[in-house]
């Protein structure tokens, strides 16, 4: 196996792919359900979110859907990372993860000098998620990695 591929398919990624965390469904309501699609490859993901309105905390999250190892692993890691976090912390994590994927909202391509990356990542502990950094070298796969994060963001937005 070439080193190139091993950059992409790190052991922790394959572990999440083979044993995905937080698979299942939640009852809607009280939980919310959001569907995400990747029109490029046909992958689908459904994110069930249960947020406690008193504490604004994601008390439970469940995932359904199918996809490639990158999308499955990223989804699994996302669910583990945001479960038990406040909505604000989850949003910070979404921004940090997208920065890791070299996606900077409201910036034109080529405009970033790297300082946004630093500010988006500041004070955020990505942990296992950093294993996904290798994806950046394979531009067509970035959408696989970000699908569930975008779906989570949409779910949080729709919740109002």
């Amino acid at each position, binding site marked *: *196996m070439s080193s190139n*591929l091993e950059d992409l398919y790190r052991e922790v990624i394959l572990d999440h792919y083979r044993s995905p965390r937080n698979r299942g469904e939640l009852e809607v309501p009280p939980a919310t359900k959001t569907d995400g699609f990747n029109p490029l*490859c*046909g*992958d689908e993901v459904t994110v069930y979110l249960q947020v406690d309105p008193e504490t604004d905390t994601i008390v439970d999250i469940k995932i359904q859907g*199918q996809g*490639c190892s*990158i999308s499955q692993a990223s989804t699994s890691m996302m669910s583990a990372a945001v479960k038990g976090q406040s909505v604000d912390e989850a949003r910070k994590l979404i921004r940090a993860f997208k920065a890791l994927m070299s996606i900077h909202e409201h910036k034109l391509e080529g405009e970033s000098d790297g300082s946004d990356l630093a500010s988006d990542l500041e004070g955020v502990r990505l942990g296992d998620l950093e294993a996904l950094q290798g994806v950046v070298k394979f531009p067509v796969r970035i959408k696989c990695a970000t699908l569930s994060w975008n779906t989570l963001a949409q779910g949080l937005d729709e919740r109002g």
Partner: protein
Amino acid sequence: MSSLDVERIRGDFPALQRVVNGRPVVFLDSAASAQKPESVLRAMDDIYRGSYANVHRGVYQMAEEATAAFENGRAKVASFIGAPSRDELIFVRNATEAINLVAYSWGRANLRAGDVVVVSHMEHHANVVPWQMLAAERGIELRWLPVTDDFRLDLTNLEATLDGARLLAITAMSNVLGTINDIRPLADAAHAHDALVLVDACQYVPHLRTDVAAWDADFVAFSAHKMLGPSGIGALWARRELLEAMPPFLGGGEMIRDVRLDGFTTNDLPWKFEAGTPAIVEAVGWGAAIDYLEALGMDAVRDHEERLTRYALDALTDRFPQINIYGPQDVSVRGGAISFLFDDIHAHDISQVLDQHAVCVRAGHHCAKPLMRQLGVPATSRASFYIYNTEAEVDALVVALAEAETFFKV
């Protein structure tokens, strides 16, 4: 023993000499778009360097040369598909635009709420969405011919499905399954119900001798880029009386005979449907691609692809007992596009490993999501063959797949 001199053919294709990730490229994605031979590149370069001008405009020599070369391209394309007249061959951007032209012009002039258009589950989105747009706008009804368990068109309820239909819009060869549909009996059945027949021949024309008159089709859509020609040009062939009765599609220069303050009159066929400056150089390149294919002979092309497809189907099923192949096993009823899936490995992951071996295959839903839902899979990998592919390249595919299988084994 191949019916084609594949080694000599490969030498004609600059892109096939490329090395990717330290290995010679194995290009197995011609169903998405084919590579181009030197003769096509040279024909296009020559026009740009020597005889380039806008067509049907100037009275100077270069403009006349460009116009002649452009119309010569049209004549070759028309002749290649057995069109009775070159005037019935409309240049468009691609097969998708050809189908949209029919939906927009013929469809809006002829279809009313409740009218039925019949399509099949194995259609490309290009032959689904234009009709769904008409359904949303006009309230036409879409009916679907299903696909059997052995990946053929299910004709059990053909007569009932066609009852009251105005149009049957059907692919001649599925870009996912490789399945070839026998057009003539379908056209006969449709015509018996007073329905017209549109054939999406995008995957068929590059690989098999095509005769639109023998099909008794009414509209045929296809493109240059899958048959060694350039991207950016395709064609709609239709029967003259249909084209004459249809209102124009895009308005502008070239498509008019006269324009006054109070209106316009349309140009003769085929220019009535060709508003604006066309893909001049691409038409010339398409003509050169047809010269190349005709020099090989379409029967020899088909024979080569049938043999290679048989070899690939056997090699894949022998080496990987657990592989799922979505398409007929009988190579006499299929083309050289082979869609496959392993139970536990996503098509994207397969493609990524194959890329390390410089093996280029398509992964995804192949713009055929209704079919993918019927098959119950989100995505497949697809290897597809053309005149320049070899048994050694199939072997390279098998080796790369074996590595992917080891890597992702659960």
